[in-house]
């Protein structure tokens, strides 16, 4: 029996809705995808506002304060809401003679929201305001929400900047793959024939090569003297040169099935130009699929960059990315002594999970007539 999921009175509403409205309605039914969307937006906000959310200069090195454990905020002082942090006092351990820090409850540093801290630039303007700032001492010396790394740099602040790097590299890499994918997939699907066969074989060849060794080889070949920005773009290019195949596959599949559709034949018979057919009739009907596939491709990019940087063959210090941060956590010994160094795994997992939920929801919603 033909069962329609909508009540009859809703039928008219549905038949009048545009494709994007239908997609939106379908998407609204996916709770997980919506949660994913919210989290992804929040993370990209962090990437945008990294300077503001950090409170310490991420490059401020102080070997004396290396590997400090997280040092929490005291929210109440004498029962009143007045956040502050205790100071830290450096002493020598009487047994090992190592320098250790203990909380000094006699010293209190009040925290200010939107207070002044290190200077940062945005669009050519200089700012010095931060979400959190410390009064009475530089934040670099007293505030360590997530502890410090081996060079005494504040992990929280570095995590903010790492989020910016990793998320933008994902986006940039996908944009580049998308360009290649749409171009080659589109050519392949629209023209078909020997050109299609050729591109398909190229894709098959690329897909049957293990990617990480290849990336490692290419990443290792980047000249040591290149600047952070140069390496950043080079890594993006390397990642997308291999990452475009999946998107090309999706685009080609769409083109192939659309070519057979009656309304395309109708447009051809009506004398529409090829460009008009592609952009007016074909692209709108698979744009939603492309968006979904793109969303699902970003996590793969992020994981690749993280893995490469984790190996030390991707981004290099002083660049900060999730993979660079995790390099400090490569062996059990360092993890056992300073477990907070694994904290950067949390944003990686959360973002990838959210992007996957979002992409899944988009993919389901992309076919509102299906």
């Amino acid at each position: 029996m033909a069962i329609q999921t909508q009540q009859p009175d809703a039928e008219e509403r549905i038949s009048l809705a545009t494709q994007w409205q239908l997609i939106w309605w379908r998407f609204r039914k996916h709770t997980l995808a919506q949660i994913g969307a919210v989290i992804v937006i929040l993370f990209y906000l962090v990437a945008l506002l990294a300077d503001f959310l950090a409170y310490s200069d991420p490059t401020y090195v102080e070997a004396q304060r290396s590997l400090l454990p997280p040092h929490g905020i005291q929210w109440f002082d004498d029962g009143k809401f007045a956040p502050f942090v205790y100071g830290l006092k450096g002493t020598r351990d009487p047994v090992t003679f190592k320098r250790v820090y203990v909380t000094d409850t006699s010293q209190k540093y009040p925290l200010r929201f939107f207070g002044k801290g290190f200077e940062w630039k945005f669009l050519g303007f200089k700012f010095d305001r931060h979400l959190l700032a410390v009064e009475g001492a530089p934040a670099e010396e007293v505030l360590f929400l997530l502890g410090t790394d081996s060079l005494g740099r504040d992990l929280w602040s570095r995590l903010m900047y790492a989020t910016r790097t990793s998320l933008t590299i994902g986006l940039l890499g996908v944009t580049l793959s998308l360009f290649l994918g749409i171009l080659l997939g589109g050519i392949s699907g629209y023209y078909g024939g020997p050109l299609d066969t050729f591109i398909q074989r190229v894709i098959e060849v690329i897909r049957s090569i293990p990617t990480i060794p290849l990336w490692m080889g290419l990443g290792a070949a980047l000249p040591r003297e290149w600047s952070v920005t140069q390496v950043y773009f080079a890594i993006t290019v390397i990642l997308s040169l291999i990452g475009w195949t999946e998107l090309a596959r999706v685009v080609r599949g769409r083109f192939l099935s659309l070519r057979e559709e009656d309304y395309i034949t109708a447009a051809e018979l009506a004398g529409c130009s090829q460009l008009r057919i592609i952009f007016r009739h074909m692209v709108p009907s698979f744009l939603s699929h492309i968006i979904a596939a793109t969303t699902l491709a970003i996590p793969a990019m992020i994981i690749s960059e993280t893995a490469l940087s984790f190996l030390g063959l991707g981004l290099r210090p002083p660049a900060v990315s999730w993979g660079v941060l995790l390099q400090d956590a490569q062996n059990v010994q360092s993890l056992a002594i300073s477990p907070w160094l694994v904290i950067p795994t949390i944003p990686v997992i959360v973002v990838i999970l959210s992007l996957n939920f979002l992409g899944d929801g988009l993919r389901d919603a992309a076919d509102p007539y299906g």
Partner: protein
Amino acid sequence: MLSYILRRFLLAIVTVWAITVLAFVIIQLPPGDFVTIYINALQSSGSPISYGQAEAMRAQYGLDQPMYIQYLKWMGMMLQGDFGMALAWNKPVKEIIGDRLTLTMVVSIAAILLTWTVALPIGIYSAVRQYSLGDYVFTFIGFIGIAVPNFMLALILMYVGYKYFNMSIGGLFSPQYAEAPWSLAKVLDLLQHLILPALILGLAGTAQLIRIMRANLLDELRKPYVVTARAKGLSETRVILKYPVRAALNPFASTIGYYFPYVVSGSIVVSLVLSLPTVGPLLLTALVAQDMFLAGTIVLMLGVMTVIGTFVSDLILMWIDPRIRMEG
């Protein structure tokens, strides 16, 4: 059928050729030719070679000739089984990577076998009992599997093992077997150590394959031939296992071709974290030290192994799907 095998075989040859080019590019990428690097390395290790020897080497590799001649010479050496010298070890590359390459394949294949034995029944269960509690649980685990990159999983598990169970996980052999010759006891020891790396490597793939299997089987379960089979009086288990599951295996099997390179890829990073004696750590040290013959050979060998794996999985696919067998 023959033409299908032939086509796949030709594609495999083309892929191998593409990989040799890529490996050659990787060897060529660092500044300076590798004989210079080689000589420098020998000098720093205290066994300099004479000018004449260096020149002889240059001629052997054709460094004074155009790029394509160099490539052809290198290919010629490869085909004769001469993979050049590894600098840091001052030994032929072949000697160094032999065992490690085998272990890489052992780990990868173990991960794939594990993936299959786990993903298949769970995928079937999730489709047949769609929207049951178990289905939701597996879907959730599946998402975690996809979201946690395998090297991070290795890192986390290592930390948990160290901190709460006070055992160091990692390696492929117990200390007493590491250098011992092969014996039954050593193989058993290896199998024991294989489980964890295989699990870590296989988790993401397992999650993906469960989703693929579930979606395929849900499609197949709606097809008329399932009703036909039921109407014959077969038991429900027999109906599902013989017909829709068999059909759902097809797209499932066609993913192994791409799954193999993916696992080999992942094994490189996971091996580093878990310090497995595979080619992974070797590749990293070779790349960092710009030991390009070693690095290039590893990339090439991994590629070739993958192509062979993909070709074998194509043959399996053909064996599973009569349509390819009859038409191809």
